[in-house]
């Protein structure tokens, strides 16, 4: 992508300028959620929706890349780095901390929807709501205290992922990282911006990325 002000070229995955006057500069990533409309609506009932101006023409609203997502094609230009530890078109949650990258594949997270991890010295919670195939990453600390989480199987609100922490037993809404019951009610974990991406694109941008494979039952 390019910016109008300087016509510098930017990598949209890395949010960094590659050529031009802004070369070397980086945009600050913000938390976003890649999810289904019904899940987003449950979490944010007053949310606005982007208009396309063509809502009345249903055929034009279809995503032109739907067959591409399902195919084995990896873009229109060959990648320089190829890493076959997982399927190239697998979705991963990509994370960069202290300029080091780590990827969490959806196939692993769907079997292990609550991951208490540590990366670059930071205690992280990686969650995955299977129903909507939505992932999120948080710093699993409240008031300086590190918490470990597990999935709660009862009392989940609106059938979305529910968790409890090992220190207070409070119940948490998994997708928002907010405690909804217990002594920590009202507290929210700090979200860590991450990028859902196809594996082939992520590893081509971050060739030395770590890859979370725990629970797959085999070393790669």
């Amino acid at each position: 992508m390019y910016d109008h002000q300087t016509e510098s070229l930017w990598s949209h995955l890395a949010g960094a300028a590659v050529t031009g006057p802004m070369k070397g500069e980086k945009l600050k990533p913000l938390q976003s959620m890649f999810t289904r409309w019904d899940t987003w609506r449950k979490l944010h009932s007053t949310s606005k929706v982007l208009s396309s101006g063509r809502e009345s023409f249903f055929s034009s609203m279809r995503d032109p890349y739907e067959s591409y997502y399902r195919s084995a094609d990896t873009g229109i230009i060959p990648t320089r780095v190829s890493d076959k530890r997982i399927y190239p078109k697998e979705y991963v949650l990509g994370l960069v901390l202290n300029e080091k990258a780590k990827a969490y594949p959806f196939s692993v997270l769907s079997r292990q929807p609550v991951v208490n991890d540590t990366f670059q010295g930071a205690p992280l919670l990686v969650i995955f709501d299977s129903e909507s195939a939505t992932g999120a990453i948080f710093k699993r600390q409240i008031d300086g205290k590190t918490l470990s989480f597990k999935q709660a199987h009862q009392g989940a609100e609106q059938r979305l992922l529910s968790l409890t922490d090992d220190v207070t037993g409070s119940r948490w809404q998994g997708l928002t990282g907010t405690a909804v019951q217990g002594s920590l009610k009202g507290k929210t974990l700090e979200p860590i911006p991450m990028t859902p991406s196809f594996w082939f694109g992520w590893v081509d941008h971050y060739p030395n990325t770590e890859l979370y494979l725990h629970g797959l039952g085999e070393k790669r």
Partner: protein
Amino acid sequence: MKSFLFPVSLALVLTVIPATGADLRPDEIVTVLPKDAIPAILRPRFGDSKSAAWLSGRDLVVGVELSGDSRAYPVATLSHHEIVNDTVGGQPIAVTW
């Protein structure tokens, strides 16, 4: 132009901080389309969720919430524009796909 065709969702704020981490290789940039062949949205318009009758529950969206201001950007629309320049919760952001 684009160098890769793969969907990635990001919400980025337009303040610049120097950092590296990614292996960015300017010598590998290839122009495959003329500039603005896929036009970015510069002045997005929004409706409330009731107005989005054309959106089904299973449709994919990129959701952003900043300072209580929450917005959904349907992926099908993002695929036609790839970038939405918006201001959410007072912050200037770019939603890229």
